[in-house]
C-alpha cells in the first residue's frame, strides 16, 4: 500500500487552475524531488496534501485513510510533516523549545512528556549541528540556521512523510551536498518518505531524489526515475521554452 495517494486532485482559485487533475503515489521511505518552474502548482499541491486548503476535486489518501477534508492540525499526528520555503520559527521561543514543540505535537503527540520532547530536540539539534545554539531565541538565527532548525523541528515530529519546500534554496553548494547526504541518511534510518520541492537547484535533485516529478502549469508532466526524468527533453522545454513551430504556441 502506498503511503500517500493523491487521486485526481484539482484545486482552483477562482478561474485559475493551480493544480489540474494530479494523481501520484508515494511509498514509505521514498525520496522524491518535485521540480517545475515558478507558478507550476508545486506549493499548492503541498498545501492540499498538508491540508491548508481542501481540493475542489479528487482525494488525498494517507496510509489507506481518506484525509481530503481532515483539518490541518490532525495531519501532523498521523505523520505528515512540513517545512516552509521561508522558515517560520516561533521567534520568541528558543531553538530547543521550537524543536521540542515538534516532538510534542507530531506523531508522538500524547505519548511524550515535555522533558522527553526536549531530549528529542537535543538529539535532532545535534544531528543538524545546531546543538551549540539551542538556547538562543530562534528569531536571532541566521537564515541558514533557521532552515536547519526547521528541518530538525520537522524531524522531531517523527513524520512518515516529510514535505520540504525549497529547503535548500539560498544555501551554499557545499552545504547543499552535506544536507542531501544528511537527509538521505535520516530518511533511511527512520523510514521517512521525503518529498523535496526544488525550483532551480538541480544539483540537489540529482544527488537526492530516486524519483522526480516535473510539474508544469498545474499538471504532472513527468513522473520517472531521476536520471530518466532529468534527461527528458520536455524538462528543458519547460524551463527554457522552445522555438515555436507551425501550429503550436511557444511555451515557457
Amino acid at each position, binding site marked *: 500500500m502506498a503511503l500517500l495517494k493523491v487521486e485526481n486532485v484539482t484545486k482552483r482559485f477562482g478561474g485559475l487552475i493551480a493544480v489540474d487533475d494530479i494523481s501520484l503515489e508515494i511509498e514509505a521511505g521514498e525520496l522524491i524531488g518535485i521540480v517545475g518552474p515558478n507558478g507550476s502548482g508545486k506549493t499548492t499541491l503541498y498545501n492540499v496534501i498538508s491540508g491548508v486548503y481542501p481540493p475542489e476535486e479528487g482525494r488525498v489518501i494517507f496510509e489507506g485513510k481518506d484525509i481530503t477534508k481532515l483539518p490541518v492540525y490532525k495531519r501532523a499526528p498521523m505523520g505528515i510533516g512540513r517545512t516552509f520555503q521561508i522558515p517560520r520559527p516561533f521567534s*520568541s521561543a528558543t531553538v530547543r523549545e521550537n524543536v521540542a514543540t515538534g516532538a510534542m505535537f507530531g506523531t508522538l503527540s500524547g505519548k511524550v512528556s515535555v522533558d522527553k520532547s526536549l531530549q528529542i530536540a537535543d538529539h535532532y539539534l545535534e544531528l543538524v549541528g545546531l546543538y551549540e545554539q539551542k538556547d538562543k531565541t530562534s528569531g536571532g538565527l541566521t537564515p541558514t540556521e533557521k532552515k536547519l532548525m526547521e528541518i530538525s523541528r520537522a524531524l522531531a515530529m517523527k513524520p512518515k512523510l516529510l514535505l520540504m519546500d525549497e529547503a535548500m534554496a539560498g544555501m551554499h553548494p557545499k552545504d547543499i551536498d552535506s544536507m542531501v547526504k544528511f537527509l538521505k541518511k535520516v530518511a533511511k534510518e527512520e523510514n521517512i518518505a521525503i518529498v523535496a520541492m526544488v525550483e532551480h537547484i538541480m544539483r540537489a535533485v540529482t544527488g537526492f531524489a530516486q524519483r522526480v516529478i516535473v510539474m508544469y502549469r498545474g499538471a504532472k508532466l513527468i513522473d520517472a526515475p531521476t536520471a530518466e526524468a532529468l534527461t527528458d527533453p520536455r524538462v528543458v522545454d519547460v524551463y527554457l521554452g522552445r522555438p515555436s513551430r507551425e501550429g503550436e504556441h511557444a511555451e515557457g
Partner: protein
Amino acid sequence: MGMTGYVDFGYVTFIALGTYGMALGITMFYQSGLGIGIIFIGLFIALFLASLSALLEAGIALRLRGAYFAIACIAINEGLRHLIEGTRIWGGSEGMIFWKEMIEAFGRETTIRLTTFWTDIAVLIIAAIAALITLIFMRGKIGYALTAVREDEDAAKVMGINTTKYKTIAFVTSGWLGAAVGAFAWGLKLTHVFPPDVFVIHYTVEVIVVVLLGGAGTLLGPVIGGLIYGLSKYWLAVILPGFQLLIFAPIVIIIIVAFPEGVIGLLKRRTKGTRLEKYII
C-alpha cells in the same frame, strides 16, 4: 492571557460578569439557609457567566486578529452593559445592592468580616492560583502550544497544534480568574454592583499596561508591572495632583516603546546564561 498574543480588551467583561454572578448568587439564594454556601453558588454563577463570555471571545479570536479583535471585545463589553441597562435585567441601570440580603443570610458580624478581611484573603488566593496556573502553563505542553499560536498560527496548525482548543483554554482560564476577582473584590467586598462601575474599559487598559510594562507571557511580569504602575500612579497623584494621567500616559508610552518585552523580558535577556536566569520567569 499574555501567552496567546491576543490583547484582550474584554477582560473587564469577565470582572463585571463575576461581580454580577456573585450578586445573583446572593440575591437569589439568601433565604435558602445555606449560609456561607451561597458565596460558592455566587462564585459558580460568576464562573459560568464568564465561561460563556470567554467562549464568545474565543469564537471571535478564531476569526479576527490584532486591533479588530480588541475592538470586538470592547464591543462585547459595551454591548453587554447596554443590554443590562436597556432591558432592565439584573436591576438594569440601577444595579443591585445586596447588603441587606447578606446580613440576612450571614448575620451582621460575619458580613462585616466577610467584606473586609475575607474578600482580601480571597483575592490573594486567586492571585496565587493565577500564578500557579501560569507556571503550569509555561512549563507544560500548553505553554509551548500557546507560544506557537502567538508566533505563527498557521505554522502551529501544520505542526499538529489544535489552535482552537488551546485558544479556548486560554480564554476560559483567563475568564475564570477575572470573574473570581470580580466576584470577591467587587461583588462581595462592595456588596453592590452598578453597570457603570464594573463595565469600565479603563480597568482593561490598566491591566494591559501592567502586563506590557512587566512583560507579557511571564510569571513575574504582571506582579512587577503592577507594582511599578500602582506605586508610580499613587506617587504622581500625591506630588502633582490632577496631572498624574497627563504625565503618566507619555511615560507609559515611552516605556512600552523602549522595552517592548517589558521589565521581566528585559531582565530575562540580560541574565541569559547566568545563575539568575532560572529565577526570572
